[in-house]
C-alpha cells in the first residue's frame, strides 16, 4: 500500500492522494467504517444534555495544563517516583529509543509485548528494537493485523480501518496458519486471542502508551476495548510506558471530564470496556518494575506557538478523522504520518517542522469545512490552526524562498490579486481584461478547458464565463 519506496523523499499529500482515491476497495472500506462510527458518535453525544459544557471544561483544563506544563511535569515525576516508579525524560525519538532499548536489553529478552501506542510509532520504536534483535509484538488486535500484514496504521484509533473482514481472514489464514478460518468477527477474534494469550503469558517486558498521566497521583491510564492492553500492563514483570509530555492532566478529579469526553468521541461508547489505571508498583501485584518515559520530540516547540499550542490538547479520540471528508476519501496513508486526518494535518507539520515538504503539504489537505472542529471534544479549532500554518509556510517562502518558489503560479496570482483588490479601478479593469481574455476559452457559453494550474479545475468542472454585464455594470445603469 505504501508508495514510499517509489520516491526518494516522502511524497506530499497531493502526490499520494490520487493513488488512494482510485483504490475503490479502500474508499469503500474507509467510507463505510467512518460513517458507521460517525453516526454512532452523534447518537451517544446527543444523549448528553451537558455535552457543550463538557467540551468547554475539557478545553479549559487542557489550556490550564499547557500554561503550567513545567510545574505539572515536575509534580508528575515526583508522584511516580513516590509510588515506586522511575521517570525518564526523552528530548527526541533517538533519546527515547535509547532509554527503552537499555531498559529492555537489561532484561535479556528477545520479545516484548506492546499495547497500541502511537507515541511509540512516532519514535519508530519497533524498528529500533528490531535493530537490536528484539521483536516487539503488537497486541492490540488492529495493530496486530497491521503488523502481520507488514502494513502501516491508517487511523489513530482503528489502525486497520482500511481493511475489511475478508482481507483480514486471508491475512490470518496465511500468517496464523489457520486455513479453515471464516470471516465471522468472532472467529477472527478467537484466532487472534489464541495467538496472543500464549505471548502474554510468556512476556517479561510490556510496553504501553497512555491516554493520561495524573500529575497529582502519578497514575497512568489506558482506555481500550479489548482487554489486551490490560494484559500487557499487568502480566509482564516490567512495564515501560511512553507518553508525550502533553498527555498530563493535573488531578485525579479531571478524569470526570475526560472519561466522559473520550469514549463517546472515540469509539462512540458511553464507557470503554477496559479502563486501566496504575500508580507506580504494588508488591506482589502486577509489574514489579515501572518506567515512565516522557517524550518531547518537538512538543515544546508547539507549545511555544500561541496559536498552534491548542494542538497539544488532543486526547487522540479520532472523532475528527471520522467526520473528515478528505480523510474519508483518501484514507490515512496519504498523510505519511502516524497522525493522519485533520489532527495529523496540524500536528505533523508542527512536530516535524515546515522544512519537511511532505509535512508542509498537510495544512493544505483540507477544504476547511469545519466538521473536525465541531466534533472535537476539547475544542481544538483545527481550521484556524490549518490556516495559521499556511500563513507560516507563506511567510517562510517570502523570507527564504528561492526565486523559483516565488514564481510559482499560486504565489504570483495571490500577489497580483492582492494588488488588484486594493483599488476599485484595478479591480474593475481586471474584470474587463478577464472578460475579453476568456473569449479564447469560451465555447457555447461555457469554459471547459483552461491552461496551466487552472486545468485542474476544468478536469471535472466547467466554468461560467463572466457575464456580458457584471453586477457592477448593471448597478451603474440604475443610478
Amino acid at each position, binding site marked *: 500500500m505504501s508508495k514510499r519506496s517509489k520516491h526518494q523523499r516522502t511524497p506530499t499529500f497531493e502526490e499520494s492522494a490520487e493513488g488512494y482515491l482510485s483504490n475503490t476497495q479502500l474508499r469503500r472500506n474507509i467510507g463505510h467504517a467512518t460513517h458507521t462510527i460517525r453516526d454512532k458518535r452523534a447518537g451517544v453525544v446527543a444523549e448528553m444534555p451537558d455535552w457543550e459544557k463538557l467540551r468547554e471544561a475539557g478545553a479549559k483544563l487542557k489550556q490550564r495544563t499547557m500554561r503550567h506544563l513545567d510545574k505539572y511535569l515536575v509534580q508528575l515525576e515526583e508522584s511516580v517516583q513516590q509510588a515506586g516508579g522511575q521517570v525518564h525524560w526523552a528530548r527526541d525519538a533517538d533519546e527515547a529509543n535509547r532509554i527503552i532499548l537499555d531498559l529492555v536489553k537489561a532484561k535479556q529478552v528477545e520479545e516484548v509485548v506492546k499495547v497500541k501506542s502511537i507515541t511509540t510509532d512516532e519514535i519508530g520504536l519497533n524498528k529500533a528494537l528490531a535493530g537490536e534483535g528484539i521483536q516487539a509484538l503488537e497486541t492490540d488486535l488492529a495493530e496486530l493485523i497491521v503488523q502481520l500484514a507488514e502494513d502501516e496504521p491508517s487511523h489513530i484509533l482503528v489502525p486497520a480501518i482500511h481493511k475489511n473482514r475478508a482481507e483480514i481472514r486471508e491475512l490470518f489464514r496465511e500468517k496464523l496458519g489457520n486455513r479453515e478460518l471464516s470471516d465471522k468477527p468472532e472467529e477472527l477474534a478467537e484466532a487472534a486471542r489464541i495467538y496472543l494469550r500464549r505471548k502474554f503469558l510468556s512476556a517479561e517486558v510490556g510496553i504501553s502508551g497512555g491516554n493520561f498521566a495524573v500529575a497529582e497521583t502519578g497514575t497512568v491510564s489506558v482506555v481500550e476495548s479489548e482487554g489486551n492492553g490490560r494484559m500487557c500492563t499487568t502480566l509482564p514483570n516490567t512495564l515501560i510506558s511512553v507518553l508525550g509530555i502533553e498527555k498530563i492532566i493535573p488531578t485525579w478529579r479531571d478524569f470526570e471530564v475526560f472519561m466522559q469526553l473520550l469514549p463517546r468521541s472515540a469509539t462512540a461508547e458511553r464507557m470503554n470496556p477496559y479502563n486501566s489505571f496504575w500508580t507506580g508498583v504494588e508488591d506482589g501485584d502486577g509489574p514489579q518494575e515501572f518506567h515512565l518515559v516522557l517524550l518531547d520530540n518537538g512538543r515544546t516547540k508547539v507549545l511555544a506557538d500561541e496559536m498552534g499550542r491548542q494542538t497539544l490538547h488532543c486526547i487522540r479520540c479520532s472523532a475528527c478523522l471520522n467526520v473528515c471528508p478528505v480523510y474519508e476519501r483518501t484514507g490515512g496513508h496519504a498523510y505519511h504520518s502516524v497522525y493522519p486526518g485533520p489532527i495529523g494535518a496540524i500536528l505533523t507539520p508542527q512536530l516535524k517542522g515546515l522544512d519537511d515538504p511532505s509535512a508542509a503539504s498537510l495544512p493544505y489537505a483540507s477544504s476547511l469545512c469545519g466538521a473536525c472542529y465541531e466534533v472535537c471534544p476539547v475544542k481544538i479549532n483545527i481550521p484556524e490552526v490549518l490556516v495559521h500554518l499556511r500563513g507560516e509556510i507563506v511567510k517562510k517562502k517570502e523570507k527564504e524562498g528561492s526565486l523559483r518558489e516565488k514564481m510559482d503560479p499560486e504565489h504570483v496570482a495571490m500577489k497580483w490579486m492582492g494588488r488588484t483588490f486594493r483599488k476599485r479601478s484595478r479591480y474593475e479593469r481586471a474584470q474587463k481584461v478577464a472578460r475579453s481574455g476568456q473569449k479564447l476559452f469560451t465555447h457555447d457559453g461555457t469554459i471547459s478547458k483552461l491552461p496551466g494550474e487552472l486545468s485542474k*479545475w476544468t478536469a471535472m468542472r466547467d466554468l461560467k464565463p463572466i457575464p456580458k454585464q457584471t453586477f457592477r455594470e448593471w448597478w451603474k445603469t440604475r443610478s
Partner: protein
Amino acid sequence: MVRLLERLGHTVDFPMEQTCCGQMHYNTGYQEETIPLVRRFVDVFDHAEAIVAPSASCVGMVKEFYPKVADLTGEDKLIQKVDEIIPRVYELSQFLVDKLGVEDVGAYYPHRVTYHPTCHSLRMLKVGDAPLKLLRNVKGIDLVELPAAEECCGFGGTFAIKNADTSMAMLGDKIRHIKDTEAEVCAAGDNSCLMHIGGALKRQRGGVETVHLAEILASTEDENGEMDHE
C-alpha cells in the same frame, strides 16, 4: 438580493468602492495581503446600518477572521473599527430570519429544489435552518431533502486546485446525492460552492441547475417565476 430587499421595503446601496473580502488570501496563507482589504472594508461600509452579503463564507471571513487580521496590525483604531462593524454584518438568510423576523418573503418558484447547506453557513455562521424556513415559505416550490447534505462539496477555495483529485472525489459524491433527489435545481447560500457544484453538473449534462438562494427568494409570480439562467 437587491430586488428581494427592495421588495421588502429596504433601501439598498452598493458602494462601488468595495472589492473583495480577502478570504481567498487569508485561507491560502497570505494573511498580510488581507490587511489593506480589511481597512478598505471598514472604510467603505462605515456608515451602513446593516451590511448584507449573499455569501456565508465572505460573511464568515469578516466575522471570524477580520479581528485576527486587525490584531496582526496591532493598531487599536483598526481593531476597534472591526469590532464595531462586525455586529452589523449579516449573511442574507440570517438577516431576513433573525434580524428582520421574516420567513415568508412572498416568493414564487414552481420548481423541484434541493438545498445544500454550505460549510461556512452551517458550521461557521451557524445559520441553522434559516434558509430552509425561507424556502419552505416559497409558493409553488417542491423542496426535497438532500442526502448527506452537511458534507462539504469539496470546493475549499484553492483546495479545489491544489488537491484537485480529493476535491473531485468529494464533489463526485455531492453530485450523486443531488441527482438522487431528482431535483431540477440545487440551491445554496454561497456562489463559490454553487460554481463548484454547477461546474460539474454542467459538465456531466446533469440536467440540474444551480441557483443561489437569493434568486429563488427574489422570484415572484409577476416575474412568472422563470429561472434566471444568467
